[in-house]
């Protein structure tokens, strides 16, 4: 209460003005017939000790709080009566009220006594103030922490807009002593209409204060050392829900809570209250932090648990989180009544657009719909089919739309009642993949975890459910930390601060988010296992999850890599000199490819960020970024240097041999001389498939394979090297209206070229017309084999297509590096992406007699980043040639 201190100081100064000499407490006598303070104080203290002893020997928190409340009520009444009597003050015109928690009879051992002196008018206020000062001082001397305010009855009905806390505390008013009629007047006649009138103000203020409080604690109950009063799930949640219920009144839409809900809430209040009593007694002050030491103590006592089961501190904390979840869920339900959760700018824009065209959007038949920016359930019985629930989560992850609290409540009811028959309960990797690969995976994974569905799909997560692992740096339980990592990544869609800005493009362009998010879900599961090194435990969890969900071997291998190395980048940043080329080279050798580096970098960014809100300092983010940049550059610059010697790869040879049933020497001939990146980018089954194409070259000199992917198609092409090969393929793709997103070109020692192009089918030509797939491949082979000309194809496309509008202007850069490779010159081009760009660049290179040894093509939004390793007549490019090429390329790309 903001005004309490002010009022108290006013009282003290009034007493000082009275000229009474200060007396030591033990010498001062209580007025009138009361006992002297030096007699009363030990009696009060003895009563306090008795209450504490009862609590220590098993009294419930409710009994303890009532006993403390009764003691305070009695002493307040006694002292108040005596002060009034000694000063022969009239009994009318002044009432003493209990407010807030004390008003609700929830007085904790070291809590303040929130009281209000209610005056009939300003005249009585002036008369009584000196007595009140004396009263308050006496209460303090008896060990009661009085926090008092004074108001006339007229002042109580005036809303103080900057002091909502006082008006909220007044909702819990309780008569203590003095003029009962005055209290009744306030309670029955003055406040009800005033509170009704100010309902909206009180609701908005309580909403604001509560949101601010929850945000201070990261909006999560899962803290390692939670504050049982203030943190989400603490007693303040109960208090706020209680007030909200009073303010909102008996609304039909709030009548949904069942007797079981009420019972759970009562149990939760008892549990949290018991902890708070323990903390107050243990710390001998109003300290509400449930520290590790106090968790041990609570578990040792089996505090507030009467099932006779002995629990470790970590197991006991799981009970704490269960109760905290109950209180927090209850509060959020009330908070949601008038105001929905804040939504992102993107959601708001989407919702506005939807509300203009369709006020309600129905998804998946009529099972659920988006209303006011949140998913609502339309057809509860349909949820017996779990695939409907899973499709709702997929939609949430795809659209970034959250489930309403009611939708969650309905799903919770369905999934927690085992007597309700469930169909299609098993979630396949294909469905889970859709969720974890989406733009907003956290939007689905968090409610799935809250509802226990995630642990049904991934029982490996049970080990870390609400798990407290003592750590100086971590602030959250292990499962909460894991979910936060995912939310930090999805937030990169609109980076909330400068730390994320640099990492955002890597996230946005990430092709295999599913692997990254899946790795994040499991990366710390080992912390809940009895293993020395949690990484090993997490890898064990991956093995079982991957086998059950039937991940492809190459998918499991990628996730395994991320989990196994999830601490490496952070350790390198913190313990190695990242500006030392040796450090960068060693780290690059660990990660192997740019794709893995990107995923590991994002994982590290998210992992540090989710430790606590301050963990990812701008300093650390910068160090991480520097290591990423240096390693990425190292990888693209050493591409041509690290060539494969097939005889060194015995294990790979065996795997391919068993898949392809071919002589080892033939496989060696195929692999010999490819850049090592080729190995790192492709799994043994993929390499075996390439080898199969290679073996067919004898019958058809150009082998192609076209596959549909998440963002388009991939084309793999094998053939003997020839002039203009790369640019011709790029030209055919451009002529068909395909936008090349990524590409690479490798050649082995025998001059066999393996080119892979990933492209978006801008006009959905191949997607909508399966017959066109064959025509496309035929057209490609005809152009490459010289049976058809490319130019007419390109010309028809140019006249049909329109230039894409520029969203961001990219300034072009052309740079050469002669030091990156022993026998090639590295060319890097960064420029605005456009249709046919790669063809134009490739043609320019061919015209100037440049041979592409290796190519690495990438696109970031509208920015094209192309790296080529070039030779001319088998040698590096001469400086003069580089200058001519630079000039030609600048003309081509500008």
């Amino acid at each position, binding site marked *: 209460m903001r005004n309490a201190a002010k009022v108290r100081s006013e009282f003290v100064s009034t007493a000082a003005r009275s000229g009474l000499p200060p007396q030591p407490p033990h010498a001062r006598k209580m007025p009138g017939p009361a006992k002297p303070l030096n007699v009363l104080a030990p009696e009060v203290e003895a009563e306090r000790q008795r209450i504490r002893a009862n609590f220590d020997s098993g009294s419930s928190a409710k009994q303890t709080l009532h006993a403390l409340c009764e003691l305070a009520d009695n002493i307040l009444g006694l002292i108040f009566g005596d002060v009034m009597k000694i000063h022969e003050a009239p009994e009318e015109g002044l009432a003493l009220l209990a407010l807030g928690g004390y008003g609700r009879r929830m007085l904790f051992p070291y809590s303040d006594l929130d009281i209000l002196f209610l005056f009939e008018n300003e005249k009585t206020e002036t008369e009584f103030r000196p007595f009140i000062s004396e009263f308050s001082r006496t209460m303090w001397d008896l060990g009661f922490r009085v926090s008092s305010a004074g108001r006339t009855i007229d002042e109580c009905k005036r809303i103080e807009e900057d002091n909502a806390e006082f008006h909220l505390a007044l909702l819990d008013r309780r008569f203590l002593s003095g003029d009962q009629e005055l209290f009744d007047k306030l309670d029955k006649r003055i406040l009800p209409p005033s509170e009704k009138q100010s309902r909206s103000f009180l609701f908005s203020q309580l909403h604001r204060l509560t949101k601010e409080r929850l945000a201070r604690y990261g909006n999560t109950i899962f803290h390692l050392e939670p504050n049982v009063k203030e943190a989400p799930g603490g007693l303040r949640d109960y208090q706020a829900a209680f007030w909200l219920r009073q303010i909102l009144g008996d609304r039909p839409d709030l009548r949904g809570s069942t007797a079981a809900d009420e019972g759970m809430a009562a149990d939760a209040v008892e549990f949290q209250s018991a902890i708070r009593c323990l903390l107050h007694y243990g710390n001998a002050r109003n300290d509400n932090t449930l520290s590790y030491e106090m968790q041990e103590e609570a578990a040792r006592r089996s505090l507030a648990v009467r099932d006779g089961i002995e629990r470790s501190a970590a197991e006991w904390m799981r009970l704490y989180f269960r109760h905290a979840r109950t209180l927090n869920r209850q509060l959020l339900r009330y908070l949601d009544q008038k105001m929905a959760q804040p939504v992102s700018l993107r959601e708001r824009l989407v919702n506005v657009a939807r509300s203009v065209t369709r006020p309600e959007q129905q998804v998946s038949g009529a099972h659920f719909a988006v209303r006011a920016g949140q998913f609502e359930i339309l057809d509860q019985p349909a949820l017996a089919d779990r695939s409907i629930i899973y499709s709702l989560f997929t939609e949430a992850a795809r659209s970034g739309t959250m489930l309403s609290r009611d939708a969650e409540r309905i799903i919770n009811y369905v999934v927690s009642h085992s007597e309700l028959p469930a169909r299609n309960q098993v979630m396949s990797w294909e469905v889970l993949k859709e969720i974890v690969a989406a733009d907003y995976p956290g939007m689905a994974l968090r409610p799935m975890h809250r509802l226990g569905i995630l642990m049904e799909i991934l029982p490996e997560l049970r080990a870390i459910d609400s798990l407290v692992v003592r750590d100086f740096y971590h602030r959250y339980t292990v499962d909460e930390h894991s979910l936060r990592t995912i939310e930090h990544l999805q937030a990169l869609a609109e980076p909330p601060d400068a730390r994320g800005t640099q990492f955002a493009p890597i996230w946005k362009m990430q092709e295999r988010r599913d692997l990254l998010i899946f790795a994040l879900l499991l990366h710390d599961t080992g912390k809940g296992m009895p293993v020395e090194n949690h990484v090993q435990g997490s890898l064990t969890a991956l093995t079982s999850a991957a086998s059950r969900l039937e991940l492809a071997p190459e998918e499991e291998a990628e996730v395994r890599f991320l989990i196994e190395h999830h601490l490496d980048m952070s350790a390198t940043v913190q313990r190695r000199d990242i500006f030392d080329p040796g450090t960068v080279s060693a780290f690059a050798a660990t990660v192997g490819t740019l794709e893995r580096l990107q995923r590991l970098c994002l994982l590290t960014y998210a992992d540090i960020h989710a430790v606590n809100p301050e963990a990812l300092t701008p300093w650390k983010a910068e160090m991480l970024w520097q290591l990423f940049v240096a390693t*990425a550059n190292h990888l693209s610059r050493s591409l041509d240097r690290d060539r494969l010697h097939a005889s060194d790869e015995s294990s790979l040879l065996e795997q391919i041999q068993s898949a392809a049933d071919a002589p080892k020497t033939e496989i060696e001939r195929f692999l010999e001389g490819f850049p090592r990146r080729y190995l790192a980018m492709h799994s043994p089954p993929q390499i075996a498939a390439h080898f199969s194409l290679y073996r067919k070259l004898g019958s058809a000199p150009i082998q192609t394979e076209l596959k549909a992917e998440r963002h388009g198609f991939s084309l793999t092409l094998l053939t003997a090297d020839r002039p203009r090969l790369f640019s011709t393929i790029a030209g055919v793709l451009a002529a068909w209206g395909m936008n090349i997103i990524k590409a690479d070109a490798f050649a082995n020692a025998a001059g066999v070229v393996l080119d892979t192009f990933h492209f978006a089918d801008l006009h959905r030509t191949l997607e909508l017309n399966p017959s066109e797939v064959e025509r496309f491949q035929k057209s490609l082979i005809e152009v490459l084999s010289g049976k058809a000309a490319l130019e007419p194809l390109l010309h028809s496309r140019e006249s049909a297509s329109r230039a894409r509008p520029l969203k961001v202007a990219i300034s072009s850069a052309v740079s050469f590096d002669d030091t990156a490779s022993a026998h090639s010159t590295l060319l890097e081009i960064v420029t605005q992406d456009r249709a046919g760009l790669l063809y134009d660049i490739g043609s320019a290179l061919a015209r100037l007699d440049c041979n592409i040894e290796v190519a690495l093509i990438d696109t970031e939004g509208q920015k094209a980043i192309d790296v080529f390793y070039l030779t001319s007549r088998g040698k590096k490019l001469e400086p003069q040639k580089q200058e001519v090429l630079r000039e030609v390329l600048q003309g081509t790309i500008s």
Partner: protein
Amino acid sequence: MMKLEAIIQPSRFESVKDALREIGIEGMTVTEVRGHGRQKGHTEVYRGREYTVDLLPKIKLEMVLPDKLVNTVVDTILQAAKTGKIGDGKIFLMRVEEAIRIRNEERGESAL
């Protein structure tokens, strides 16, 4: 009493901390800082964009020591933080007039 401030390479921090712990020094204030002395920054180019690192990341250690420990601590930091390259950092020593422990108002070296 002396106040010691050491600016060291981030990569040497763990070694320095371990070495100090071995000689019984546990208390210190650690700050992530940026700066440069003779070791100038450098420029990295990534995807066509230049990233200039003119202020290099360093770790600053601060501790107040009884006079008799100063030389030992300085030697320990020198040994653990030195790589012999430019950028290893610096140690600064300043005299301290008084130290007061807030909890019990102890003063002087016993407050350290």
